[in-house]
């Protein structure tokens, strides 16, 4: 693997981070609203004060927040703060910083997304590979069509149905939250079991929807790979069909799948945000929903920035892994 390749990918990562920060800075300013004046006018109308001194107060506050300086200076300060990991204070929960609130929610989202993405990717890829194989078991023919149909609907819609079926009607799983109210968070077996039980429904709604897509793509790749000459040659050599299946077909067909995984991460995350909202799962999605409800602008910006940077890192890692998975890539430029 060449150093140039890694450097190039890292450059893309830096561009993504810079774009996310810049977007965060300029988009809100496009609307032309003055947050300080709005807030003061809002408070003045609530308290019934006269509005005489407000313009002076606006000036003082703007000086304090640096809003009176030229735009490019504000932008540079902002970029510098972001680079130091300072994402400002939460407006609705004032003394708390955005970074602290995100730090609390992040493990939940990483856990949920990591688990469901790995499971659905592995399961879908395996099912898709089996499906293209002539010796596949009969029951697959009955399992796949429903999974393909599910693939067309958003995660959270299935979430609603599962919630009603398993939590409301059957009452075998908890309906809401990341752990039972009143439970003491800690590394005790009881609490871990509780967390797992709460994770079942959100995970199921993501996994059941994604599996079909991975299976569909993998089946297509398998059909192409099985037509290759080296597979015919392996059959002619008299290799066991199991080793042809795993070492010759799956090994080669899985490569485009992993490329697709990097591209799909963003979509999976967008969908998972809504699943968290529906189930009140205490991750970034639910925090984002809360921030939108409370009009907590800095928190919204912070979450969006964190997620974009996080996904950028994940894509970067996958990009670095490709040449290791597929030696052909390292000879290719770009």
């Amino acid at each position, binding site marked *: 693997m060449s150093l140039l390749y890694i450097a190039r990918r890292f450059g893309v990562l830096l561009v993504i981070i810079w774009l996310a920060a810049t977007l965060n800075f300029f988009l809100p300013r496009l609307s032309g609203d003055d947050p300080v004046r709005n807030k003061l006018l809002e408070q003045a109308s609530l308290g019934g004060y006269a509005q005489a001194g407000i313009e002076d107060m606006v000036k003082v506050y703007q000086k304090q927040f640096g809003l009176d300086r030229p735009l490019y200076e504000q932008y540079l300060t902002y970029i510098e703060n972001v680079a130091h990991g300072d994402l400002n204070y939460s407006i609705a929960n004032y003394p708390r910083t955005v970074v602290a609130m995100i730090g609390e929610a992040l493990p939940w989202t990483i856990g949920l997304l990591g688990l469901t993405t790995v499971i659905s990717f592995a399961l879908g890829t395996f099912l898709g590979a089996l499906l293209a194989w002539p010796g596949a078991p009969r029951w697959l023919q009955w399992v796949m069509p429903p999974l393909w149909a599910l693939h067309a609907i958003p995660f959270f819609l299935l979430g609603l149905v599962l919630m009603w079926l398993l939590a409301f009607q059957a009452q075998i799983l908890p309906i809401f939250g990341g752990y039972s109210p009143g439970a003491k968070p800690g590394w005790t077996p009881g609490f871990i079991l509780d967390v797992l039980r709460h994770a079942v429904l959100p995970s199921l709604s993501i996994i059941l929807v994604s599996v079909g897509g991975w299976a569909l793509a993998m089946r297509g790749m398998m059909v192409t790979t099985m037509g290759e000459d080296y597979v015919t040659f392996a059959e002619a050599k008299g290799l066991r069909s199991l080793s042809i299946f795993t070492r010759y077909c799956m090994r080669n067909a899985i490569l485009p799948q992993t490329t697709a995984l990097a591209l799909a991460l*963003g979509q999976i995350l967008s969908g998972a945000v809504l699943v968290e909202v529906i189930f009140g799962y205490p991750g970034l999605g639910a925090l984002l929903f809360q921030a939108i409800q409370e009009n907590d602008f800095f928190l919204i910006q912070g979450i969006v920035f964190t997620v974009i940077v996080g996904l950028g890192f994940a894509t970067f890692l996958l990009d670095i892994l490709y040449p290791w998975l597929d030696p052909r890539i390292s000879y290719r430029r770009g």
Partner: protein
Amino acid sequence: MRRYLRRNTSLMVGLVLLGLLALFMIVGALTVDTSNAQALSVPALQPPSWDYPFGTDRQGRDLLAVMVAGTPLTLRIGFIAGFFGVGIGAVLAFTAAYYRGWVDTVIRGVADIGLTVPGLLVLIIIAVSIKSLLTVNEMALIVASLAWLNPTRTIRSQVLTLRERGFVEIARLNGLSGPEIIFQELMPNLLPYLAATLVASVSSAILASVGLEVLGLGPVEAPTLGMTLYWVNFNAAIINGWWWWWLAPLVVILVVFLGLFFLTVGLDEIANPRLRRAA
């Protein structure tokens, strides 16, 4: 035609589902009083009955009227955003893939980077920045602002393979200009593929708009499908056992997504005949 439809089951299923939906919208628009889709117009929280076949919600909307008024709105968001997306995407893709060079590098770079970013979150920032109450059309434009990324990428790769064919070479030797080749030679050959891309991007635009609406960033006044689900979630309708409230929007959205999905698969099969063997 009928024989082809029997062979291309996906296309038929898609058309039947969307046909049913169209029938529901037309018959509904002619027979149902859509003014009952506003809050406080009928008794609240009635389960389905003869008077209110789909039941009513907590704020006193007749859910049948909401579905009749809201389905076209949601579809409109999807179609406006989808058309913009494929239109802009096609122009960029043809320019990039036909002329290559630095134009291609820039367009491909922007599309590739843009696609790694989770679209919903960028849309959230845009929607929050606008702050004012959104209308359905503004909503569509917000969604359209990112809807061109995917079409650009996929159409570009199709054009790249097409431009190396013999007939393009001959057209170039005949002295046709770049735009002439794009519109007269390349575009007609990709029409079925463009149609499939259009349906797929309408579907993902609807997905994005429903997502924004469920988060509470939609047109609050409009009874779209996504806003209905927002109220369902807001009032915890599932825990409270008001099953009819979410059943109606759920079924309509299911029909929309499944219909568009099967239509895309069917159109893909027309665009790419090699798929027929695998199916």
